[in-house]
């Protein structure tokens, strides 16, 4: 088993953190192997941001994602750029707050999960937790890493005083995935 996940959007949306939390939970609480990479802008500026996670029951040789099984897109730009590369039969999670139009599907028959991720986060109080909402969605939708492991990871990484908000955000994401 080798599953390739990708979270893509803009710098500042916290997708790298989300990717790391997922990967870390996977490392600590499962027997699976995991590798996480990300894209960097020129030195470190730049708008786009991308985090990749590979989870595998075997050794992970080639450490990069070539065709994600699961993709989360949180900007229109990311949607346009990455959706066409998703594996046949894969899953695409779309933040409908920002992604208004999906690129012409090349009939790869993948599953699309649409949810106003950022909007939900705003609703909860601060858009900054959109990444955690997305993480909830992703965790629940993939089902590879136990929800409580990821949740623990979230609480480990977020600033003091924001735990409650993040819990809610994660839960909202999980709910959304369940509901769909």
């Amino acid at each position, binding site marked *: 088993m080798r599953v390739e996940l990708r979270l893509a959007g803009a710098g500042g949306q916290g997708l790298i953190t989300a990717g*790391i939390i997922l*990967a*870390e939970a*996977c*490392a*600590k*609480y499962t*027997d*699976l*192997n*995991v*590798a*996480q*990479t*990300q*894209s*960097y*802008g*020129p*030195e*470190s500026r730049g708008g786009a941001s991308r985090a990749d996670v590979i989870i595998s029951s075997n050794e*992970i*040789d*080639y*450490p*990069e994602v*070539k065709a994600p099984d699961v993709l989360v897109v949180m900007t229109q730009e990311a949607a346009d750029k990455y959706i066409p590369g998703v594996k046949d039969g894969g899953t695409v999670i779309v933040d409908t707050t920002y992604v208004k139009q999906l690129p012409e599907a090349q009939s790869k028959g993948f599953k699309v999960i649409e949810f106003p991720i950022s909007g939900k986060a705003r609703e909860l109080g601060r858009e900054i937790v959109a990444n955690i909402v997305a993480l909830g969605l992703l965790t629940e939708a993939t089902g590879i890493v*136990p929800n*409580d*492991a990821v949740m*623990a990871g979230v609480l480990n990484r977020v600033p003091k005083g924001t735990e409650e908000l993040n819990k809610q955000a994660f839960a909202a994401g999980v709910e959304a995935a369940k509901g769909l």
Partner: protein
Amino acid sequence: MAENKARLLQGNEAVVEGAIAAGLRFFAGYPITPSTEIAEQAAAKLPTVGGKFIQMEDEIASMAAVCGASLAGVKSMTATSGPGFSLKQENLGFAVKGEIPCVVVNVQRVGPSTGMPTSPAQGDVMQARWGSHGDHEIVALCPSSVEEAFRLTVEAFNIAEEYRTPVILLMDEVIGHLREKVVLPSKEELTIKHREKPSVPPEQYKPFAMDQGRIPGVPPLAAYGEGYRFHVTGLTHGEDGFPTNNPAIAEKQIKRINEKISSNRKALCKVERFFLNDAEVVVVAYGATARSARKAVKDAREQGIKAGLLRPITIWPFVEDALSEVKANLPKAVIVPEMNLGQLVLPVRRVMGDSVPVIQINKLAGQLIEPEEILSAIKEAV
């Protein structure tokens, strides 16, 4: 919910973990992508174990401070990438000449010049060997995974201390920035080596003795402040450390410093052999590229092709012997994929001579070579 012993660690972080485990207590650096996390982690962690971090004014000063701290008896390290590695060359040569144990990390990015700072490359392989002026040997190690980044950092310190020499940890951006699940060895599992201290009284101490020390050609090293009052210079010097113009002494000393590395090839040269025994096509790959190569070899085997992988873990000194073994089996071809225009392939060709065709796969612009590219070369070769 049962937490296992594993952690998610970044390659660059693993270097700092390994270094501190090996005894690092002084880090001087200057930020540069994609090595910066090493400095950042060192800044955060060293003071908690009583060590010091300093961000110097540039890479030259960092290399200098590292030498100074090491002579004061403290295990020291710096980290950089291509442009900074170029700047360190003069003082790296000083460390070689003064036989100062230390570790220099180069997380390679695309060059030449500023190049593509966030993209991976393996373009400094030859520079690591030849970047400083004058005849000198260099030890360079190249990890292919986060766990190995940890282990080879420990190993780099051990070699630096045992051989009184700077050791280069030659990473690439892929491994530096990659986060992987790792289980770090416990303190007990690790062998930590320390430089040999002089066993003679100060008056008899020769810091550059020809024939003292556990390892032939590696003289014991006192620390500043211990009463040995010894002299270190970048000028060609005699056993006592003072400059000499005597060609015979000079020749002996320069040779000793070179040969303590070159004649210990056996001990220093580590490789990983993967399906080599009956391999008809041998891939020689290192660093991140070796991971694609491994995948390609596995895929080839699945398709019934007798492919194998020789992975140099030690890049310098060059793994001549392991390569000669490969040559002895007369494979149909040796394939050398590199994220550069072809660097380590040069000594590979030299060893293979006219007997074995050497095929190179090169990618320059910051993209990891894919398993498929290697696989198709393998297929073509059989």
